[in-house]
């Protein structure tokens, strides 16, 4: 029993306690600022994410880079406790439209290999300004009017799923 005690508690319990405390503070700090733990609710991102899935969101992903096409990102509402999880399909300055479920960006069909569920969505041309992205979920089987998607301002994008 003694070696086990040494491994888990250490020879000096005060040092162990201090180390555990520091580790706890570091993990808490990282999980509340850089790697936000995410618990998914809803099926908007099927088949990649579904209710009950867990993950982390890297909030530094876009500190030195711009959000990219196909990135799965968190969209903040009033804060970061509750966010939308969506995929970027349109970048600033582009136009996005959907015909019979096929996404067209600047008039060309966008290849979306990740899609398994595609419905008959139709959306007229949406022009994006210089600080706007077009985001949508992967579960396009849901009727379009039941799905929350559209143009979103850059400042609302919290980070990228990790």
């Amino acid at each position: 029993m003694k070696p086990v005690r040494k491994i888990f508690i250490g020879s000096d319990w005060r040092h162990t306690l201090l180390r555990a405390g520091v580790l706890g503070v570091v993990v808490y700090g990282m999980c509340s600022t850089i790697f936000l733990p995410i618990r998914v609710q809803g099926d908007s991102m099927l088949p990649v994410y579904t209710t009950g899935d867990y993950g982390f969101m890297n909030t530094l992903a876009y500190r030195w880079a711009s959000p990219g096409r196909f990135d799965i990102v968190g969209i903040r509402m009033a804060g970061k406790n509750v966010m939308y999880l969506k995929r970027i399909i349109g970048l600033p300055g582009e136009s996005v439209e959907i015909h019979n479920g096929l996404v067209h960006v600047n008039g060309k069909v966008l290849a979306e290999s990740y899609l398994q569920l595609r419905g008959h969505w139709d959306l007229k041309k949406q022009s994006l300004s210089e600080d706007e992205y077009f985001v949508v979920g992967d579960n396009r089987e849901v009727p379009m009017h039941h799905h929350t998607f559209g143009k979103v301002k850059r400042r609302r994008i919290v980070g990228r799923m990790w």
Partner: protein
Amino acid sequence: MKKNSVAIAAAVLGILIVVWLVYPKSEEDHIRQRLHELAEVVSTTQQHRDAARLIHIAGLQQFFTEDVSVHINGNIPNVGDRKKLLQMAHVALQQEPNLTVAFEDMSVIYDNGTQQAQVNTTVVVTGAHSQRAKSVNAQEMEMDLVKPEGEWLIKAVRPVEVMKIE
């Protein structure tokens, strides 16, 4: 010596906890508490049936001004008075017997001069049709609150557009 240090640390911690508990709450804290109470009243369970449900819904009126204006989103008609709001709540709560409402990420701007406040929050509504089938809806909202007679009342509710379609 060590025992003394531990006792002093415990005493300081105890004093801090007591100060934290008895320290007078700010108006912002009162507003947050008021909205959490509203969330509790709106949330229903299967136990809230018939008469109990009516009493439960009547409890809602203490949170709104008579001329409350509520805009939720495009699919739900706007409401311009408290009576109509309660009627709508009655219908909605009958359709959703298990409903949980929560206000997340609440930020409060309080104007001391006018006794008015503005709240920005994410409203999360979870409906459970069965143990397995749950529906979750979230919407960012702005609310205007006033304090005419000692209690904070909601005067206006409007949605904040996060994603936009032309």
